């Protein structure tokens, strides 16, 4: 049973990113969208948490949302995959279910 988790709020704003990472099962995938895309940037206080979680989860960030916020793709943590809306669709269909953290 594989699950895709989507998170849409910045970890600087609330705790959904940290809750998601602490609660979701190993081998789940996490897709960062909307304001949550800032989670995958290098040199923030959440970088270490994301980097160490990459051994347990696959992580993705939505490219249009990174670009809309002026976040450089070069500053995305290595190992996090940058995806578009069509990849978002593939992720939802490739996993057995989708959990949106709101």
């Amino acid at each position, binding site marked *: 049973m594989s699950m895709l988790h989507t998170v849409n709020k910045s970890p600087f704003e609330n705790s959904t990113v940290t809750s998601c990472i602490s609660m979701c099962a190993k081998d789940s995938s996490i897709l960062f*969208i*909307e304001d949550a895309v800032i989670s995958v940037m290098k040199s923030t206080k959440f970088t270490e948490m994301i980097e160490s979680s990459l051994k347990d989860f696959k992580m993705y960030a939505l490219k249009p949302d990174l670009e809309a916020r002026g976040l450089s793709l070069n500053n995305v943590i290595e190992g996090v995959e940058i995806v578009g809306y069509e990849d978002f669709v593939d992720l*939802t*269909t490739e996993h057995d*279910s989708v959990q*949106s953290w*709101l």
Partner: protein
Amino acid sequence: MKLGILINEGPYQHQASDTALQYVKAAIKKGHEIYRVFFYNDGVNNATRLATPPQDDRNITKEWSELAKNHNIDLVVCVAAAQRRGILDKGEAERNGKDSDNIEEGFRISGLGQLVEAGIQADRLITFGD
């Protein structure tokens, strides 16, 4: 694959309706079937045809309406959430003694059972909200 979509957020809160729209467009492009889009809570505010955003602003109600028309998508607005927020079709306006309706073409008002049904019938149910 059959996809169900739940939208819990209006057009001027955060980004949920926009993300959902882009997701649905991408899903259609990839050949998936959108079983239903269900608008719940403040998401019902996506359905008013009386909203008149500036011309250089995106008009997400029109975009949903056109997408529904072009791809035969079932856009369902929760009746209880809609009544609270003044979103009415002709029947609801008459039933509640209001002087007009305001629902955009392509949307229809129905009950929460439609969301449950989408959850059962669709292969995936994806939630967009706050």
